[in-house]
């Protein structure tokens, strides 16, 4: 019952250990994200929306519907991803995208892609990249929300290795049209 020195030392040691444990636990239980890894050609789900990257292309310029060209510049190219979002349910979520490559995270010019309940929506997403460093690039899609608890992110391994990169460069069209509105197909 009395505060003797050995008791105080034992008490302080245990309380310190608990403080360390608390710190470690709080660090380890950070909310984070539920990342779903998908191979190119496969699809991942966020709630009722099924997301698929149907095609990727490289180009040096993108053009709008009026035909106005927007070149990327020297040692720069646009990686253009065609993303299809099929929503079988009732959720209407704005989805956002990004590309990770060579330790960088690149955002598309317009990162929000179309999604609407009851439709399959195809969006064209151009991202300015350094084409020589694209090996192992990963394309991510996740819901754009102000508040989050444990959100889901679908990450596509675009399957870009050296051979694929050479193929993409060889087959690259001089420019790709990026429509302002995505194309919609009712389900």
């Amino acid at each position, binding site marked *: 019952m009395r505060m003797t020195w050995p*008791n105080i030392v034992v008490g302080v040691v245990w309380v310190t250990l*608990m*403080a360390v444990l*608390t710190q470690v*636990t709080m660090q380890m239980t950070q909310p984070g994200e539920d*990342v779903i890894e998908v191979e190119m050609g496969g699809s991942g789900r*966020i709630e009722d929306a099924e997301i698929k990257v149907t095609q990727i292309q490289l180009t040096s310029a993108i053009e709008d519907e009026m035909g106005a060209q927007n070149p990327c510049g020297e040692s720069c190219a646009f990686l253009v991803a065609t993303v299809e979002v099929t929503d079988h349910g009732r959720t209407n979520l704005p989805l956002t995208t990004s590309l990770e490559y060579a330790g960088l995270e690149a955002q598309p010019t317009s990162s929000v892609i179309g999604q609407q309940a009851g439709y399959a929506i195809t969006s064209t997403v151009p991202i300015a990249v350094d084409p020589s460093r694209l090996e192992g690039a990963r394309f991510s899609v996740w819901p754009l929300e102000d508040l*989050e608890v*444990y*959100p889901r992110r679908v990450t596509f391994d675009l399957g870009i290795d050296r051979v694929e990169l050479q193929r993409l460069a060889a087959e690259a069209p001089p420019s790709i049209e990026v429509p302002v509105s995505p194309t919609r197909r009712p389900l």
Partner: protein
Amino acid sequence: MADFAALVRRLVTGTARAWWVLLPQLMILQLLQWLVTELSFRFASLVIDISGWLALGVFGLSILIVLAMVVLQMRLVSNHVGGRRLIPADLRLVQARVHDDEFGRFLGLTILPFLCIYGAFGEIDRRMQRLSQESVAIQDVLAGVTLTQQFSIDPLWPKGAFLLLVLLVLFAVRRSLEFANESTTFRGFGYLAAFAECMFMLLIIMILRELYSTTEMSFRGTRMAAWVEAVGEWIVSHMAPVASLIDMVASGMTIIWPLVSVVLLLPALWFALAGLVHGSKVISLADLWQAGVSPKMAVRALVRRQAPVDAGGSRTVRHVVLTVQELLFGDLDDKYIPAAQAVRLAFRGGALFLAALSVLHTLLHLLGEEILPWLMVRLLGGHVYDFWFRFAPMFVDLPVELLIEPVRITLLSVAFAECLRRVRDVSENVRNQEATA
């Protein structure tokens, strides 16, 4: 070290046994607590646009009912583990005479540490945030009114003055209800007084929060702030070691303080609450025992303290003075001092006792607040916020609360009984020494 292990073992086995025996009752009370919380959120979010006061009333009532469930669980465990039996019969008679053993009074007594815990550890903020989210979700208006907006205090006339007037009225109503409870047999006054106390404290917390942020914002950009900044810059340029030391201490405090509060302050405050459910007289008794007063003398001192005061002189004047004194400062004796004594008891129960309580409480706190919710969320997988908003109370909060809260409350009651036993032993030793002498 062996003493520490034995103490931890005793607390763990005592908790496990009591929890197992009382499991159905504890679960029902915990379930009720969850249900009341959820219903009050729905109801308060529906009425918040109509009247902020009504929403605050629902909010306060839900907090009071949550506290009532906690107090009931603690009383249940305390009766089971023999905490009540440690209170001498003479003192129980005094408690009955001065209504110190009534449920309404326990609520009034425990509301202070309970709201301290809720206020200091962000629970009130979380609840307010949830209330505004519910309001937006239910009424589907992005400009939903929040409680903070409804009660944002303007230091200038008339809103600040109006809120101060409300506080004064609440204080007067509460004290009158407490007097009515003490002088009549109608127990409802006790519950109404506890509700008025809860509203009073909630309003004070909200006003203090608002005043803090208003003052902080208005301080920025003033000449005074510029002076403080200039002094800081002078220290950085002329006394680099002092500046780096201040920086080190400040950054150390931002890491250490939250840990200290979770590991030491939180168990001590909850322990105080577990002690206060036995009545303020028991805390005073434990204090006297702990100070080495023999058991009989301690009870006698408390009984004597309760006897009516007759100081002579003009009876009418004296009576008026005493009544005014009781009206204005009775709170100190009745609530705030017992709460402070109860917290002190946790710190004076011995280094090993405090460490054992800290270890077990922190483990349960981490399980209930961090680890299990984290696991449950991962088990349910990634979802949009709307999903969590709708289903987290049912699939994350409820299972975790049902699993951990009754165990934690049992531990606190078992720990208080153990502490009471230990201070009584100190007192018994004094009596034995006196007898030998």
